[in-house]
């Protein structure tokens, strides 16, 4: 399933699963990720799964590129190796104070805001990967008529909890951070929990997300 293994610098393997972004390729990446993680190989210092790549960082004192590459190439993953998938429901409030880019999205997609939100909430989303900042999930896929580009000028500060869309993807900002996604709402739910060290992420690669809409009163109730 790995098409090619290159080096990324002198202390990481760059495992290429293809150039397309789809759930089939990504599920292969995630299978390898969980499998290698479980092996608990000495000297592996990080595993970074993404849409169609898996990067394996290693301690140069323990491995060289060629020896580790051989080890990874020899890993066999059974086709019926099922992914553990959780369904997670996440509340989102689309009050005007939170839906920072709804006007822009209306203009770009040429759809009324109620239709946009109806379409957004009617689908389940697959988690391709988490990262960039701690716990941020990259979810997909949006319907073709819901796809638009990032903001021309990214925001310096996107509020924590913001739910945004760009291209075929949506995400949740787990921290206040700069960002350019189109913001449709905000979740009161904590997506990344620093105090939970064994499992800080609410959403993990392979999970399915169902967003449901809440009112401002419900939002404030959950926040309290």
């Amino acid at each position, binding site marked *: 399933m790995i098409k090619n293994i290159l080096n990324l*610098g*002198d202390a990481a393997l760059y495992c290429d699963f293809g150039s397309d972004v789809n759930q089939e390729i990504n599920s292969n990446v995630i299978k390898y990720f969980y499998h290698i993680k479980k092996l608990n190989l000495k000297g592996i210092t*990080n595993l970074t799964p*993404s*849409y169609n790549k898996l990067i394996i*960082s290693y301690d140069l004192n323990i491995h*060289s590129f060629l020896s580790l590459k051989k080890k990874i190439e020899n890993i066999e993953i059974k086709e019926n190796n099922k992914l553990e998938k959780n369904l997670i429901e996440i509340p989102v409030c689309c009050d005007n104070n939170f839906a920072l880019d709804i006007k822009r999205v209306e203009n770009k997609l040429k759809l009324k805001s109620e239709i946009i939100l109806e379409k957004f909430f009617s689908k389940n989303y697959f988690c391709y990967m988490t*990262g*960039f900042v701690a716990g941020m999930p990259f979810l997909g896929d949006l319907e073709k008529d819901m796809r638009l580009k990032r903001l021309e000028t990214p925001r310096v500060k996107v509020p924590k909890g913001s739910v945004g869309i760009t291209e075929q993807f949506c995400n949740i900002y787990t921290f206040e951070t700069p960002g350019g996604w189109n913001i449709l709402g905000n979740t009161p739910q904590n997506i990344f929990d620093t105090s939970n*060290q064994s499992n800080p992420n609410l959403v993990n690669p392979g999970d399915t997300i169902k967003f449901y809409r809440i009112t401002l009163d419900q939002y404030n109730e959950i926040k309290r």
Partner: protein
Amino acid sequence: MKSKDRNYFKILRAGINTTYQDLGRNNLYHIGIPFSGAMDKRNFQLLNSLLQNDYNSPVIEFAYQGPHLKYFGKDIFFCISGNVSFKIITKEGVIDGNSYQCYLLKNGDEVDIHSTNKSVYGYFSINGTFGVDYYWGSCSINTQAQIGPNNGNKFSKDLEIEIIDINNSFNKRKLDYLGSTIENIRVIKGTNYDYFSESSQNKFFKESFKITKLSDRMGMRLEGPKIENIVDPNIKSEGLVKGVIQITSAGDPIIMLSDHGTIGGYPKIATVISADYDRLVQLTPGSNIKFKDVSLEDAETLYKLYQMETNNIISQIK
């Protein structure tokens, strides 16, 4: 604990980006948490060796200007690594301190760390253990994700730094070491090297780049000839590692450092080799650097040599 039993520093001036650091946290990229850890690992290692602490003991890292600390408690030794100017203020008077030497502090003495010289990071620690909390096995403070002791924030004035243990079997030691600097940064070509025009590829290795002020523990932004992308200014977002050089849409290089975002969507032109990382991060804004292309095999050998050199320096501690 009664205040007379406590050993602690009070921060009279916090300095710039002063934080606890150790070797950092592993195996968390997949949830978006970077390694963090001391930027200059060699100076981190030298400091703990000089103080005869455990190799992964917490130290205090600062950038450009260090903290001014006042000590309260029983006698203790401290040491500073890096190219650092500092003063020790005692009842007997004020003396200039030297890096890589251990000094005694008595109750009421002060250490005023003015600046790092022609470098960015310096390190301070004691013959003992700071009272820190551990997050995923590390006490490194990542201010961007607010992970680590002090609620993941850098130090501020009036904060008190607790010392929970003092090593009484400590032998005062020192090291004659001037540090080592570097102008040519050695790199391995990146996975998107062919995204850039041939003339830009040549410029990348022939011309020099200036380190800008937009540099911190997350990354180092460079300025120089624009690197022309002939394929696509973006790639499908994928994992990053320390030392990766991405080219932004504007054509400028940005080098990922210890607190970097774990995923990125700019093409990777090259990656800094592990042997040159400690010296790269010590280069100050305004410095000019040139990139030199090396093979993977050479990079692996150069790293071994760099480690041997570090061990050799440690063996000279007397």
